[in-house]
């Protein structure tokens, strides 16, 4: 990956000459290559790629918290009730099944869970999510999301990067590239306990965007949230005072070297990078200090309960990062075994998964709201696809279904207590106001005040977008 596709107007070397370095610096070089003609989003100061930048439209949201349910939660069992599915249980699906399917499926399977209308909006939520149901009036349920890939890997990559057969920057990287961060001592994009499976790092990578915009992983899916940290954030041998002394010596040596080498932006940038790293060493552990939260807050997130402790901590960390100005925060729910991937054992698996996330998610929504953060924080919930209305593995499982599924948004300028789009009568295909993953991306960017067609980056001779050559903004969901 060569982050500098050397522009014709300004080459790498000249960029080096002109820039210092910030948290991530100067790969931002290409940001400068002719912003007007390419539409690339120019960083106000290429030396500080994470410096906050104003959106191009009035923004409805300033930051994103993406609650990612790995494996593919079933929409017909959670947020998309299907009366006909109940009626026609154990009958064949009357329509045509997709041309390519992940696996053969059997007859229709009604949801084992009951739906009820909740709050003033009356949005239906199944009994799997009793706590989230209490927040129904804050949800904007997208029932017509659809993707293109029926396998986990492809679908994860598509959802996170917009592409399943090429390595492309992740949506968090695009957002951070577009808007910078409000706290330059923390990464602009943090992913809490991500999974290494199915695309792994590519799901939070920056691909050809400058490295400053890549997601910083906090632990991974095998690490309990309480132990999750950023690699190399602490020195095991030196005290902070000793390290300060060491960095002072280092600074002197580097400045002498610079005098002798002559003015060089990369050398200068590297001098600054050590100072910034030293500040990050302080900022990150402070953000991770959950013990500073009140007992009430901790129990709101379910941290005192074994079942919800882990995801509760992840969600609470997300709020702490949101407060500190981190632009894009992803929280992944991914147990070590099969996640939300219930080809069989639907009742047991979905019950367990929902129990782990329900209270923490509701806690996060309530907490954000009470702190006035929900109005400019966009919360996105969902998996890489939904599940088929037809059964698999006997009468207690469902297959992957990218043809139509549900994600929901909350906060950040979306219509509250609102359902958008619909799947067909049985929940197999998106049918009304279809929202492709590209449309979801376009809409997210629009909510953040960015134009998905203009947020481009020039690489290998082409202007790339998160939405490739597609994407429509679903303006109907804007509050």
């Amino acid at each position, binding site marked *: *990956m*060569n982050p*500098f596709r050397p522009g*014709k107007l300004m*080459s790498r*070397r000249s960029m080096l*000459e002109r820039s210092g370095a910030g948290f991530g*610096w*100067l790969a931002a070089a290409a940001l400068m290559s002719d912003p007007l003609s390419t539409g690339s989003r120019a960083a106000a100061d290429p030396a500080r790629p994470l410096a906050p930048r104003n959106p191009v439209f009035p923004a409805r949201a300033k930051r994103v918290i993406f609650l990612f349910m790995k494996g593919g939660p079933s929409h017909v069992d959670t947020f998309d009730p299907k009366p006909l599915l109940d009626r026609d249980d154990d009958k064949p699906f009357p329509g045509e099944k997709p041309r390519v*399917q992940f696996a053969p499926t059997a007859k229709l399977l009604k949801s084992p869970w009951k739906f009820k209308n909740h709050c003033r909006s009356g949005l239906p939520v199944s009994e799997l999510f009793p706590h989230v149901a209490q927040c129904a009036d804050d949800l904007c349920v997208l029932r017509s999301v659809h993707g293109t*890939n029926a*396998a986990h*890997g*492809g679908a*994860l*990559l598509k959802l996170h990067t917009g592409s*399943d057969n090429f*390595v492309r920057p992740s949506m968090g990287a695009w957002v951070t590239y577009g808007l910078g961060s409000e706290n330059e001592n923390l990464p602009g994009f943090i992913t809490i306990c991500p*999974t290494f*499976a199915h*695309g*792994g*790092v*590519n799901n939070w990578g920056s691909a*050809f965007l400058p490295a400053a915009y890549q997601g910083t992983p906090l632990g991974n899916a*095998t690490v309990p949230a309480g132990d999750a940290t950023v690699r*190399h*954030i602490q*020195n*095991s*041998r*030196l*005290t902070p*005072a000793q390290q300060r*002394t*060491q960095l002072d*010596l280092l600074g002197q*040596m*580097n400045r*002498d*070297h610079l005098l002798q*080498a002559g003015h060089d932006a*990369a*050398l200068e940038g*590297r001098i600054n*990078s*050590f100072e*910034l*790293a*030293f500040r*990050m060493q302080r900022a990150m552990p402070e953000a991770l200090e959950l013990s500073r939260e009140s007992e009430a807050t901790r129990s709101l997130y379910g941290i005192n309960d074994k079942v919800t402790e882990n995801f509760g901590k992840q969600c609470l960390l997300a709020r702490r990062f949101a407060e500190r100005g981190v632009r894009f925060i992803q929280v992944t729910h*991914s147990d070590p*075994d*099969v*996640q939300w*991937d219930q080809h069989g054992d639907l009742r047991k698996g979905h019950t367990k998964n929902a129990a782990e996330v329900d209270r923490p998610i509701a806690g996060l929504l309530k907490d954000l709201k009470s702190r006035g953060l929900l109005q400019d924080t966009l919360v996105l919930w969902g998996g890489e696809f939904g599940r088929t209305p037809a059964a698999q593995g006997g009468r207690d499982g469902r297959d992957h279904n990218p043809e139509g599924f549900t994600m929901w948004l909350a906060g950040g300028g979306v219509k509250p207590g609102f359902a958008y789009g619909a799947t067909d009568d049985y929940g197999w295909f998106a*049918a009304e106001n279809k929202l492709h993953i590209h*449309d979801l991306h376009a809409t997210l960017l629009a909510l953040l005040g960015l134009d998905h067609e203009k947020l481009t980056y020039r690489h*290998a*001779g082409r202007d790339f977008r998160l939405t490739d050559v597609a994407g429509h903004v679903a303006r109907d969901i804007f509050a």
Partner: protein
Amino acid sequence: MVLKVQVAPLCLLTLAGAGLLFARLTAAAGAEFPTSQGIEFFEARIRPIFVDHCYKCHSSKEKFKGGLTLDTREGVLKGGDSGPVIHPGFPDKSRLIEAVRYKNLDFQMPPKSPLRPDQVRDLEKWVQMGAPDPRDSTPTAALGPRTRPVDLEEGKKFWAFQPINDPPLPQVESQEWIRSPIDAFILAKLEKEQIKPARGADRRALLRRATFDLTGLPPKPNEMASFLSDSSPDAFAKVVDRLLESPRYGERWGRHWMDVARYADSNGLDENVAFGNAWRYRDYVVRAFNQDKPFDQFLIEQLAGDLLPPTGSIAVKHERLTALGFLSLGPKLLAETDKVKLEMDFIDEQIETIGRAFLGVTLGCARCHDHKFDPVPTEDYYALAAIFKSTHTMDDLRTVARWHEPEIALPKELETKAAFDQLLDKTKFAVTNLIATANKRLLEELKTNSLPANPESRYPTNTLSELKTLKEQLKKLEAEAPELSSAMGVKDGTNILKTFPVHIRGSHLTLGKPVPRGVPRVMTGPAAPAFGDHQSGRLELARWLASREHPLTARVIVNRIWSWHFGRGLVDSTDNFGALGDLPSHPDLLDWLARHFIKEDWSMKAMHRLIMRSSTYQMAASKDPVAALRDPDNRLLSHFPIRRLEAEEIRDALLSVAESLDLTMGGKTIPVKNREFVFNHTSRDATTYESTRRALYLPIIRNHLYDFFEQFDYPDPAVPTGNRGATVIAPQALLMMNSELVEQVSSQLAARLLKQARLTDAERVEQISLIAYGRPPAQKELERALAFLRQLQDTNSKAKTEPGGERAQAWGALCQTFLAANEFIYLQ
């Protein structure tokens, strides 16, 4: 006449649909000569549908997706990329109607929600009426690149597609600076701008530069001493020769090529399984560089090693099969459920990689449409795709798909395997034999003709225990079955395609006209190959690429070599020589080098000697104020560019200064079985990076790179990369400050110096400087280091608990500071 034509539709309209002939007549007339009723119907019912639901993506004023515009009559009749969308008079044959009916799951319009049933009926009726359309037929304004067919003759005029020139050496004033023809080309441009080239680099800097450059390692203090004391005029030439002879050379330069070959030990993408035999390709590349394999041969082996005429040598055969890893190493969507698409995706990956690696052309752009910027029509793409469609890359496309691996077992391995198979058969036979005998006896005992259920339960004890032993033996044998060595690679398919249809918009669901196998037509020079009937065409393609007349192959590789020496190519965009790439800074030099390279039989080592013996290469990195003003970008090379070490160099240099670098070469180093998951559903990481072998041998796991590599701009191993970045980010600083690796090598270096009891502290500091930077410290540096040691030992410390801990720790911290400093990782 005119009158008749105008009248006819009026009469016929009432008969619409009555018969095919009539319908056809109606249709033709309906669209072009609409009746007032037709117009009325269009205005009342059809135009609103188009405006509300279609224009956003299909109009000459906004977008024209799929090449289709619906805002003019002409656009409607012309249709899109896959042909006409309406067949006036025949709704059932009209793609537009098919789309709005929403019955075909792969073809639905409008894409977001279906039209209302009455709207669909109106459209059907409108087409049935002959699609009357009163709208202006003015040809739409510029519809963007697609409407301009690729002009190959015009395209051929672009510099990169022109034959390689034979430029004369330019005349220069300062003849004394000229050590090599290269210098004449460089100096001529500098003199024109009145810029003086920098003085020669000092010898310490030069040795450090050359040693890292050719071997990726720092010079040893004794190598430095011997170079400094060699006053012969060819002292540096001797150094270059010594470095080129070192096996470390192939490891360093092989690694450069591995960037281009997007080398990795795992698939990445969706299903991250181990490429357990990729290392054989890696070792092949290292050997090729160390042996100075001619580049044309290197190229041909990688694309068609299996198709070369046999030499009779097994070793050569295996070497050539191993080279094919180049075609197989790409990331593949192994769980893609659409198998036809899966196949086209990896064919695309092969074409794109070949294009970027050897031609510097982004051929992949022409998969869905004519290349938007370079003269590569989509037909040329499918001409190449025909070759790879006729190539067998995968054994099985079922999830998780299985790539092909040619067997490369040595005779001895085959013997062992045969012996093993014999033993296995013998054991199997013993088992069946024992059972048969026992059953027979059982039947006799029971005096019956049919065996009871579970006969084994009735066997005598000794038979049963014998059977158990045998079965255990069999199980053990099967578990130990030797696997014959294999390498990643391809072979020719059983179905050799002579033509292959263009896939309209890249989709296998919309096939266009078939095109014969071929090569990009815009590249002038070598004649287009004639493809044999019985082979895929890879060999013909490879030979065409490696032809001495090819305008791009030699230019692209010499530019790469230049770029790996100077940190930047004469063409800055090493992987893109097309219209969006950069123009060469020294076109004549590029062509001169390309011709020279071919003349020297495509020898890489000859090219290194030529470049490194030049004054240009041996300049100091110091900038002249005039140069800084006139050529701030140093495009003209008035001084040597400062270069940051690459990820592997930094890591190897760290281990090297601690004297803990293990120089064992080659072999399998990924700790996972072939085809086993590196990560499946879980996030458990089986890979470690604790090995002290050269970084080249550390596992390259796609989607999960070693973090040290990741932070220091290691390229994305999923795509070919010609030149790496050199960013500066805070996580790199954290790594240098806090990582175990850096802490460890610092303590090792400190411990080694502390062990030498006869050294004074000042001498120890001097040693650190010599080891890390190849120079003694200045007085000021020495004093500062000693002061630092005192200060650190006086402060509170985490190491207070161990005896002597403070001293060791302080020295460790000092060593770490030297290694973290800019001078260690930036070359002058």
